């Protein structure tokens, strides 16, 4: 891995995305882009080749986080970390399995946990 690890941040809430981006940057990561929709996320992942994708499941538009992740997974093995309020939901866990996420974090996101998960993903 060359230089700072690059992260694609997928989050439909702009303020949260902004807060997260600043925190990640403060922690030394390079955020190659933020996407609010699944389509944008897939396009950015294909174009930017991030080292890690940070994916919120709830997105704007018709495509949710899992579908967006599956599109990314179709041509990339990039580690994907999910952020969701539905971690205990069986339907969610079932649906997310084909994506093979490296981690699923419960919302609200605790920065320490997030950084630990990203660090682990970067070591893969």
């Amino acid at each position, binding site marked *: 891995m060359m230089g700072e690890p690059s992260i694609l941040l997928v989050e439909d*809430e702009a*303020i*949260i995305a*902004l*807060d*997260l981006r*600043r*925190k990640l940057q*403060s922690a030394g990561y390079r955020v190659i882009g933020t996407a609010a929709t699944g389509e944008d996320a897939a396009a950015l992942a294909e174009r930017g080749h991030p080292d890690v994708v940070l994916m919120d499941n*709830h997105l704007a538009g018709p495509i949710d986080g899992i579908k967006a992740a599956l599109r990314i997974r179709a041509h990339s093995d990039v580690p994907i970390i999910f952020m969701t*309020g*539905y971690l*205990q*939901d069986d339907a969610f866990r079932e649906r997310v399995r084909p994506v093979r996420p490296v981690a699923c974090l419960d*919302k*609200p996101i*605790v*920065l*320490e*946990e997030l950084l630990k998960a990203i660090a682990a993903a970067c070591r893969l």
Partner: protein
Amino acid sequence: MAPKTSIKRISTAPAGGTASPRKKTTRKTAPPTNPGRRSAVSAQKRAEKGWRGSEKAFQNAFEKSVIGKSLTRPDGSVRVNKAMADMLGYSIKALEGRNWRDITHPDDIDTTQKNVDALLSGKAESVRFTKRFIHKDGHAVWVDLGSTLRRDENGRPLYLITDLIDISERKHAEEILRASEATFAALFQANASALALTGIEDGRILDVNENWLALMGFRREEVLGKTAAEYGGWKNSAAREDMRRKLAATGSVRNHEAVCVRKGGEEITILFSAQIVEIEGERILLSSAVDITERKRAEAALAAERNILRTLIDYLPDNVFIKDPQGLIILNNLTHRRFLGRQGLDDVVGKSDRDFFEPALADRYMEDERRIVESGRPLIDYEEPTVDREGRLHWYLTTKVPVRDSRGKITALVGINHDITERKQVEQALKENEERLRDILFSTADWVWEVDENGVYTYSSQKGFDLFGSPPESVIGKTPFDFMPPDEARRIAAIFAEIAAHKAPIKDLENWNITKTGEKICILTNGVPILDGQGNLKGYRGVDKDITEHKKAEEQIRRSLQEKEILLREIYHRTKNNMNVISAMLSLRGESCGDEATTRTLRDIEDRIKAMALVHQKLYESPDLSRIDMRDYLIDLTSLLMKTSRPPDGLFRLECEAEPLRVPVDMAIPLGMIVTELFSNVFKHALPENGEVGVRLHLVQSGTGEIELTLSDDGIGVPPGFDFRASQTLGLQTVFMLVEHQLQGRVDFQSGRGVTCRIRIPAPDLPVEART
């Protein structure tokens, strides 16, 4: 066979035993005993003397005698007197010189010749015998004759002197008698009755016929010459003597019933008749016996049967009566008399219905009976009203039948009344019930039905026809599955089979059906099994309710609720997101403001907003959207606080012990904020010099439902005399306000080694009024 020789001549003897002038008993060889004969013999002797003494006198006596006389010469030629010539229808001259053989019956010539020879040969001085001459007109004339031989001085035969008496009439009478005797003997033997001849004086049996022997079981030789006492024929000797006395008094006994004992001891009842008859001058008892044992037995059986029948009829619960064709009672049973209010038969016999019933009823009954007599047709099982002595209405099932004599004439009516009042009352009640039920069934909106054990409809109320077709056969004979779409029919058939296998009731079984108009309707079926006496399932009966509208409304409500739930979840989700956005904005501001105090304040606010956001997250994850599990929430909240707000220089050991407890949102948010404030205080003030604090959170619900939340730490505590309530810190004021103002609870701080805060709030399940 009875010896025929014992029966000679029989004539019936008049009472007292005096016989009519007796006819002579004659033997062919017996000497003549009648006066006529005696006079004829003496005349012959006189003639002989006269012959010797006076031929003239002899000749005169010969010719004038009124008795037939003849002189027969050895050559057979005869001289006869007038009496003899008259006897044979000839003149004297016509017979003079004729040979005796010419006028003798051919059958008697030999006998006559033998007698003549006996005289001529000297073997007999005189002969006497009967023989037949031939009358001039050809018929035989029986004569009784006696002859002697007249000889000359040298002993040579001169002629035979013969006296002849016409016995033709007597012979004729004897012929008739012989025929009569033969007839009697034949009748005696062949008689269908058992007959016996008994000596009247000694009572000994002279003869019995075969039927008598068969009746009494004896052999002939066992009884001949014996008395009844000796062979033991009569059971009762007194009865026998009684019968004999009656016989002696009247000469006969007719149909006297007696008990006899057969050989072997079997008793039989006979009808005994006897009459004294005279046979050969002897008075003999002719008795006949007819075995009536069977008849007596049959009579006894009949009498017993009659008695049983009478008793039975008397004690039948039904009225039984017999009336004459005019409607007058001949006989009735006890039940009928009791009904009429009479005791004895005498109180009712000869009376009519008019004596017992009010005129209208009596006329009705008598009119019925008059019609039966007129038409000859019975009235069978017809219902009629009647009124008893207390004036109560009864209903009878009545049968009246005409009774006819042997010529077919109606002589009586037999009537039977069977009281059916109770049945009529039950029928009436049943009818009313049926009408009520029919009206209910007709007017009810529900469908009442019955199916047999194969699920085939056997009954349907009007509603069934309204739904599935007007002619009854549109429903009756079909099964419920015929009205269902195929998939539904399969589903319901499987359920019904399971229910029927257990003979269980059908409870609230919803099923979809297609009506006659093609409309899809939902029916709620309830039913109970119909079992026979052995507990076998014979079918089901129940009620179907059309719940289509209800189902539609229910579906609408369900959808509406689902929408509401989705909306609510969305709102919780958005609220949580918004709070997280606010939290992120505070975080951004805090990081960029450059002022430590402001940053800390913003982080405090961020923590409280996260505490609230977490409640909303738990809410939209919660199944009922109105309550959350406090245990779950507190674990997540304290975990979050420990991660985000903990001072970096301290070591906090958290021990969280909470009961699963579902509380409403308006309680969860204040509790979350209280915990956040208390944790904030611990993080800020409890840390000792060694930098290690144990924090214990405990949540429990008491038996009364009160929720107790305790947060304790083993930190440095507060200075002695510290008044928590008077403290001006925002955090503590917030805690007091939230507990006491918002949750109507109590808060209690204790300090020692560290601080313990105990909060008690009323049970969340209590109504709001009870909590305020």
